[in-house]
């Protein structure tokens, strides 16, 4: 009679997407900015995997652990830390090294609307309105929508976002670290626009751009908007 082998765990490698957050110094000021962001968008980090990039910040071990505490107080879940000095890392939070090729092998959280191409397309086209509550996440490139984006809908793209319609929801272009991404729309009534993490909420958008046909890009650290007519 053969003896059954013991079941063994199987380990595989995987590549995933995470939001990389780089704290600024002084840390208190940066945490205050995070608090402002959370005050406006309490669910901003909800469900997102966050990696902290502390390369070059020369944090002491205490400062680093303090930072982790502050983030955990704000319910920001840290997947791992990049660029940390080995003396700081005590095993509480895994140390990560960025994949050299940095090519996404696995998709980020499933988009609400599936693309028809089997391989991840570099840009996707959505030819119907994006409804309130729907979330499009495309970590591979541009997103183009033929139709409007409703209030309460969200589009997150690695590249630029083009809306041939009215933008009433939230758009986050260049969301995976692309400061050259742009946002285009036929009629601006957006709740929030962001490029590579720099964002403007509706209140901060100059009234002259409301209901206008615009493009937005990142000029330095601030979003700039211009009329397209």
């Amino acid at each position, binding site marked *: 009679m053969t003896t059954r082998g013991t079941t063994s765990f199987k380990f595989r490698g995987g590549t995933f997407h995470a939001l990389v957050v780089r704290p600024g110094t002084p840390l208190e000021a940066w945490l205050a900015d995070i608090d402002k962001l959370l005050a406006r968008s309490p669910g901003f980090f909800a469900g997102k995997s966050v990696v902290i990039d502390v390369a070059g910040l020369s944090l002491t071990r205490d400062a680093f652990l303090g930072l982790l505490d502050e983030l955990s107080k704000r319910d920001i879940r840290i997947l791992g830390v990049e660029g940390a000095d080995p003396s700081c890392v005590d095993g509480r939070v895994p140390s990560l090294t960025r994949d050299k090729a940095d090519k996404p092998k696995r998709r980020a959280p499933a988009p609400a609307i599936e693309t028809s191409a089997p391989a991840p397309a570099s840009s996707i086209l959505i030819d119907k309105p994006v*409804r*309130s*509550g*729907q979330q499009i996440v495309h970590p591979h490139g541009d997103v183009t929508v033929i*139709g*409007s984006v*409703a*209030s*309460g*809908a969200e589009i997150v793209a690695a590249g630029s976002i083009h809306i041939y319609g009215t933008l009433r929801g939230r758009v986050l272009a260049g969301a995976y670290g692309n400061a050259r991404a742009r946002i285009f729309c036929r009629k601006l009534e957006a709740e929030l626009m962001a490029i590579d993490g720099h964002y403007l909420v509706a209140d901060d958008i100059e009234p002259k751009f409301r209901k206008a046909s615009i493009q937005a890009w990142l000029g330095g650290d601030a979003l700039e908007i211009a009329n397209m007519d």
Partner: protein
Amino acid sequence: MAHVLVVTSGKGGVGKTTSTAALGAALASAGERVVVIDFDVGLRNLDLLMGAERRVVYDLIHVVQGAAKLTQALIRDKRIDSLFLLAASQTRDKDALTEEGVERVIRELRPFFDWIICDSPAGIERGASLAMRYADSAIVVANPEVSSVRDSDRIIGLLDSTTTKARHGEQMEKYLLLTRYDAARASRGEMLGVEDVLDILCIPLLGIIPESKEVLNASNVGTPVTLNNPASAPARAYNDVARRLKGEEVPLVVPSDKSGLLNKLFGRRAA
């Protein structure tokens, strides 16, 4: 074989139950065999609007759970022979609904009726989700008001993604029914106009029901507004909608309680 219609909205209080009762009665008065089903388990109202609240013995939950047969639960309307009601339970809640149970109820009703109208509860959870799950087409009810319109947009998104039709890759026909419309307030800019709502929701317009005291009058006496006062403005509007549902082309006007010139609207055609 019946056509299954879901009357849904997202937002509460916009006129789903009123519309279900009014349209059910209007279609049945025209000779169609109609059953209206209340999916608002625990907060049922359709029985009140149909005037059947003192005759409910078995309800949708009893049938879903196999405790009663459909024939025992269906309540025939006293005024129109071909109109039936399947009431919701008041003592249970939406967790008592099951997907298989709802699918079976609708499947068993199909051969005996021309129209199955599902009155959805408000919200986006189980009750609303099951009410729309097996529908052939949807009437999205909205008031010309920002919260209602945004909630309706959310519901439209769910109609396009969670229904059986959507899962089979088919497009569900969705129509907008704009209720509680007040032409005077719209023209003063106090209320969203028809074009504003259509611009946001991008679905064809089925009809416009004017705000009217007749709706409350009808509900107070437990009669659908189309039966209680057929000459009233909302009744005429609902009757027009029923005709459009049957495929007739009826020009869209917003009937007013006052006769007058204010009523023709852009000469637009409804869906």
